[in-house]
């Protein structure tokens, strides 16, 4: 057979293309749900780690199915859509353009009162993102988890890999003052500043990027957080009032 004729060449390439496309379409379709599960479970495990339900390794150990199940059991509220990193990126543009309302942003409220808020921004090499967990007073940070696409392992990569960096966030407070809602400060946060943590030594640009990501997003959540605090304070006042009237009633 003459393998150099035009007809043969055209038929050959067509057959190869169709075959390859068919194989790829088949494989991609059959693996798609597993890939989607992996992605979803990864995001959920980051949220759960931030909310201090367990360490990141724990979720990896128990696997996708159990992680998703745990999340469903403990999450409170209707809006439990999982935002992928590209969804967060799209929201990040909207936040910067100022065209998104605070209540439209994703938030994960758990049954134990913990609220987890995502943050997203640019690090040194690529995007950095993460989740910040806040207690039900909408002020005290209880935990955080960060991830990145391509920061240098051992330097900027520490935002993910160094538990000590993440641990700093627990106990800090989100305060809307001149120091920013929650800052990462190069050279170390001054003692007594309640809304700042230390930056990573040697990873100035990544720390700065993460700082800006947190500032941008927490400022976008400002209305939501302040409303929630007011509601919280109102409830506290009412509860105190009821208790007071209760004690008054007893005295009478």
């Amino acid at each position, binding site marked *: 057979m003459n393998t150099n004729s035009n007809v043969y060449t055209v038929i050959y390439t067509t057959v190869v293309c169709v075959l*390859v*496309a068919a194989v790829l379409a088949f494989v991609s379709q059959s693996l*798609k749900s597993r890939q989607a599960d992996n992605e979803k479970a990864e995001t959920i495990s980051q949220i759960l780690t931030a909310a201090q339900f367990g360490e990141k390794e724990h979720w990896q150990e128990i696997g996708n199915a159990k992680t998703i199940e745990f999340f469903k059991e403990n999450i409170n509220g209707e809006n439990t859509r999982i935002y992928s990193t590209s969804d967060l990126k799209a929201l990040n543009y909207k936040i910067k353009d100022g065209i998104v309302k605070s209540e439209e942003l994703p938030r994960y409220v758990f049954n134990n009162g913990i609220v987890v808020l995502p943050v997203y921004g640019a690090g*040194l*090499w690529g995007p950095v993102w993460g989740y910040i967990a806040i207690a039900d007073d909408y002020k005290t940070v209880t935990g955080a988890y960060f991830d990145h696409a391509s920061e240098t392992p051992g330097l900027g990569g520490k935002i993910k890999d160094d538990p000590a960096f993440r641990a700093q966030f627990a106990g800090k407070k989100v305060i809307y003052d001149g120091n920013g809602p929650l800052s990462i400060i190069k050279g170390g946060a001054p003692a007594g500043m309640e809304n700042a943590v230390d930056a990573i*030594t040697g990873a*100035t*640009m990544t720390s700065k990027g993460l700082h800006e990501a947190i500032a941008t997003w927490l400022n976008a959540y400002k209305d939501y957080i302040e409303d929630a605090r007011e509601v919280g304070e109102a409830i506290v006042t009412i509860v105190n009032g009821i208790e007071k009237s209760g004690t008054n009633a007893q005295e009478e």
Partner: protein
Amino acid sequence: MEYLSLFVKSIFVDNMIFAYFLGMCSYLAVSKNVKTANGLGIAVIAVLLITLPVNYLLNKFLLTPGENCIFGPDVDLSFLSFIIFIAVIAAITQVVEMVVEKFLPSLYSSLGIYLPLIAVNCAILGGSLFMQQKEFANLGESAVYALGSGAGWYLAIVALAAIREKLSYANIPAGLKGTGITFITVGLMGVAFMAFMGLAI
């Protein structure tokens, strides 16, 4: 302003050679003298500048699911992206080769066999894959990124060729001659480029 910062960043900070190791094969093979390095560098800029925006459009309107996809919002063809990108690159390189052969015969003869090699130059495919990863907002950004990373590659290869021309007079241990010393030179140049990141080591 955004474009300028993207441009400068892709030349110096995100340098294809020094930060991502892309296009190293032809980088090492064609950097023996400044003249050919110059030619290959320009060819890389040209090919990047054409392929990256083309792949950007394909990625946006064909491969990524969503409102822009011409097959409807639910069709996800992103698994085909590698094959589409490399096909576009191979075809465009072929065209550039033919154009250069017709209009710039002297450049064509000096580049010799390296022009077809651009098709398998990691910097070109890498550019498209980074474009996909970085999710640029518009065509302009992808073109600026292509120009910047091509210019960074050009700068790197011309600088290395100049150093290698001088190096041929140096007295180098026998085992280190050729490839060995070139790698170490590139490493040291890379250390210098690290300064652009503002990193404290």
